[in-house]
Every structure is written in C-alpha cells, then in structure tokens.
C-alpha cells in the first residue's frame, strides 16, 4: 500500500508511524459521534442532576441549599413509601418471574415435546405489546367489574369481586401480575438458548445416577445457567427499579400512594406537583444508588456460589 522509494528502511519506519497515527485518528472519528452523544445526554445530565440535588426552589428559581435535600429525603414519608413499594415489586416479582421462565424453558427444552413452536411463540407474545397498551388493557381486565372478576366468580373461586385496583394489597398484586405477564417470555428466550448449549450427556449421566427431575433442575440446570441468570436478574432489577409506565397507567400510583414507584414520584415532583427540580434530582440519585447496591448484591450472591 505504501509506495516504496529510495532509502526503504527510513521511509517505511516513518510511514508506518504515520499510518498508525492516521489509523488511530480514523478509529477515533468512527466512535466520536456516539461518545459525544452519550456524554451529552447521559453523563452531563447526571452531573447537572447532582448540582441540582444541592439546590432547592420552585421551578427554575433554584438556590443552593447544600445537603438539605438529602436530609429531607430520609424523612419524606412519600419517598420512603415509594422505596418500599419498589423494593416489594423487586423482591417478589423478579424471583417469581425468573423461576417461572426457567421452569417453562426446561419444559420446552424437552426433545420429545410436541407443539414446541406454538408454546414458545404464545409465551413470548406479550413482549411485542407496548408497555402503555398492555397496561391499559390490564387496567380493564382487572377492573371491579372486569373480566377477571367475572371469570373468577363464574368459577366460584371468589364470592365477591376483588378490588384489584382500589385495595392497597391487591393493587400491588395486579402490578406484579402485569409485569410478570409481560416479561416472563422475554427471559424464557434467554434461558432456552442457553439450555440448547448444555450438553445432553450431563442429563443422561444424572438420570443413570438416579437423580430426580427436581434434583436435576437445582443441581445441574441452575448452576449451568448461572451467568445468564445473573444477566437477566440484573436487567430485571434495573427495569423494576425504574418502573413507571405500568404503574402510571394501571393504578396511577393509587390507592393513595400504595403502588407509587420512585420513578413516578420523580415525575410527580417535577411535572405534577409544584415543580421542585432540585428535590426531584435528589430522588433520582436514590434510584442510581439502589441500582448500584442491588447489582453488587447480585454479583456477590452469584460469586459466593462459585467458591
């Protein structure tokens, strides 16, 4: 590529360095737009949010208040309720969904199973709906005189209609049921493809050794899929900590604040109540901290089992 001239050694040394510098410049220019965009729309706003979290005031008239917002956070009953709600969703919904997805994928991985394609497509189908569309659908399914109550009563499972949306306990259950419906199939796809890479002879060996299906599930399947389980549980955790669309459209945070999430509280603080951007930014940092804490816990749990 480099035209050879007199004094080849000097020339080549010089040109390769020139080429390397040129290549480096080209390489950086390929990544430049993306890097600038991410800094501009992710990292810069996070710095802004931190500065804002040290300020307070209405709308855009902010004054410096130091750590006052952070002190207010710890005494704010609404904030504590939203953290409690979010953590409840997290520790109940994520494990249920992951176990359900694992279980379904193990059943689907059976070589002799018929209608495999139908089952897989059907269970994955909820993932194509938009969060808003399915949330509104669920709101009506679970209404006081909604189809869920009608069917449960027809089957004589309940005598009175359940207040799915207006009772603090059942409202949380409805949200959990909705998220589980939407995301189980999504996680299932990950486990299915991981299972296809697991050597079948391991299962044969376990069978010969007399392992029960339950033992096989806990002693072979789960350990083999550990990396992907970790991946999905971290993404689900991050997703759940940011929960917004479902709660906003199914219960709007009610009854009272019984189903409100942290994200929704930030939205309300900024755009629904008298805007207090400084305090909203403080609450934002609470989510970031929670995400970091839960991710570390999950890595630790996964790591310990390794040892």
């Amino acid at each position, binding site marked *: 590529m480099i035209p050879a001239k007199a004094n080849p050694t000097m020339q080549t040394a010089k040109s390769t360095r020139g080429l390397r510098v040129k290549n480096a410049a080209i390489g950086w220019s*390929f990544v430049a737009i993306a890097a600038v965009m991410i800094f501009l729309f992710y990292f810069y706003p996070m710095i802004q949010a931190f500065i804002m979290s040290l300020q307070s005031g209405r709308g855009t008239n902010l004054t410096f208040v130091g750590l006052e917002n952070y002190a207010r956070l710890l005494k704010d009953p609404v904030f504590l309720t939203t953290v409690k709600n979010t953590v409840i969703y997290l520790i109940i919904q994520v494990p249920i969904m992951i176990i359900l997805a694992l279980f379904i994928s193990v059943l689907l991985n059976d070589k002799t199973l018929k209608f495999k394609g139908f089952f897989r497509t*059907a269970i994955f189908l909820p993932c194509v709906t*938009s969060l808003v569309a399915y949330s*509104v659908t669920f709101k009506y*399914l679970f209404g006081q005189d909604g189809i869920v109550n009608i069917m449960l009563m027809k089957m004589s499972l309940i005598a009175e209609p359940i207040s799915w949306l207006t009772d603090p306990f059942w409202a949380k259950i409805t949200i959990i049921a909705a998220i589980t419906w939407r995301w189980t199939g999504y996680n299932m796809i990950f486990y299915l493809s991981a299972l296809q890479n697991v050597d079948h002879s391991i299962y044969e060996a376990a069978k010969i050794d007399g392992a029960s299906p339950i033992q096989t599930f806990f002693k072979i399947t789960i350990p083999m899929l550990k990396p992907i389980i970790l991946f999905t549980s971290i993404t689900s955790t991050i997703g759940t900590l940011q929960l917004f669309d479902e709660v906003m459209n199914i219960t709007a945070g009610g009854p009272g604040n019984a189903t409100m999430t942290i994200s929704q509280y930030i939205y309300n603080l900024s755009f629904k109540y008298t805007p207090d951007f400084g305090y909203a930014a403080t609450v934002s940092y609470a989510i970031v901290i929670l995400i970091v804490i839960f991710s570390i816990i999950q890595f630790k749990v996964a790591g310990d089992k390794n040892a």
Partner: protein
Amino acid sequence: MLKKVFGYGFLSVAAIISIFPFLWMIVSSTNKSVDVTKGRLLPGSHFMENLNNLLNTVDLVPALMNSAKISIITTILGMLIASLAGYGFEIYQSKSKDYLFNFLLLSMMIPFAALMVPLFRMFGTISQNAPFIGIDTISAVILPTVTTAFLIFFFRQSTKMFPKDILEAGRIDGLTELGVFFRIYIPTMKTTYAAAAIITFMASWNSYLWPLVVLQSPENQTIPLLISNLGSSYSPDFGVIMTAIVIATLPAALIFFIMQKHFVAGMMGSVK
C-alpha cells in the same frame, strides 16, 4: 407419563394466560362498550363503529404519523451512530478506546428517571435559542434517546465475528476507510442491522416517559400518549379504547411475526 401430563398442562396454562389478553383486546374492539363490561367474549360486529368513534374523538392519524416519524428517524440514525461506533471500537481496537468503551457502557446503569429532570431543563434552555429542537419538538424526543450504549455494545459484539480479511481486500481495491464501512461492512452485516432495527424501532414506537415529559401540545402526541390519555378518561368507551390499542399493537406484532428469527437473534446477540 405423569411428568408428561404435568408438562403439557403447565405449558398450556401458561400459553392461555399469555394469549388471553390479546384475544380479549381483539374481541373487545369488535364489541360495544356495554357488552365489554358485561364480559362478552364473542366477537361482535361493531369494529367499524368503534373505529369511526375513535377517529372522531381523537387525532389518531396524526398520532400514528408522529410515532412513525419518530421511530423511523430514531431507528435509522441510531443504527448508523451505533454501528459506526461498534465498528470503530472493534476494528481500530486500542487500549484507550477500550477504556472509553467500558465507560460508555456505564451509561446503561443510569435510569431514565434520573435523566428526565436535567434533560427537561437542558431542552428548556435550548428552546430559548433554537425552538425547532427545543421542548415540544420531535427532535427533542429523538436526540437524547437515539444513541444507546446497548446498541453500540450489540454492534461491537457482532463485529467480532466479522471476517476482517474482506476489509483489507476493500482497502487494496482503493476504498477509503469510510468507503470500506459503507460498501463492505454494512452489506455483509444485513442480519445484524435487521435485528438492531427491530429492537430500536419497537423501543421507540413504545416509548412513553420521555415523550410524556417533552411533548406538550396535542398535535405532537404519539400513540402511547394517546392511549394513555384514552385510558385515564372518566367515562371510558371500552370498545373504542381497545380498537386504539389493537391499532397501536398491530405494527409491532406484524414486524415481530415477519422477522421473528432476527428478533430472537438480536436479543441473543446482546449476551454472547
């Protein structure tokens, strides 16, 4: 034998639960509101009536157009930016670029809820100088969400398996570095682009929170905003709302069924 029965039973129940809300949605869009509340599960003949009512009460077509515009622009721009970067990080690999790459990945940990307030203020400031990309414009919806670390990561992962010899061949043929990217890389990576397109389009078509914050005038409404508004009305017409939901869900569902393979491949590509 018992295990078999249990397996089929369990999967059937899971499949029924998964499909039921769809069936209910479709059936309800063909029924009158009264019948929906009575729990009618048979298809009716009121779909056209519901559609007419829907078109008369809300600006459905403009909302569909807005959503389409935003999703198409986000998909094309987002894929271009992310694939350029993924390609750059992998083909021109260097230590310092790897540090940058890992740093960019950190942005995946940042929840959007934490970004929305500073972003809103940022676009508020932009509005004063350049109203055409400020609050209540399509640009304001697209700009902060068009570049995602996830998509960069996805393209970098896919580039790992790219046969690098062809690039060299292209260079010898006299193509510039950018020429190699556009003439050789993009055509050979069609399936990766297809998967990326589906992921990006679906995410954009369905996005709710940021458009809710930044789009204020009714004529700029997107489909999720429209449905959310319909859903929170005091005297909802169920037939009409379900018709709107069916129409909003259809494009995404169609794309999914046509490109199912790419969709799953795309999800998998992210964790290889």
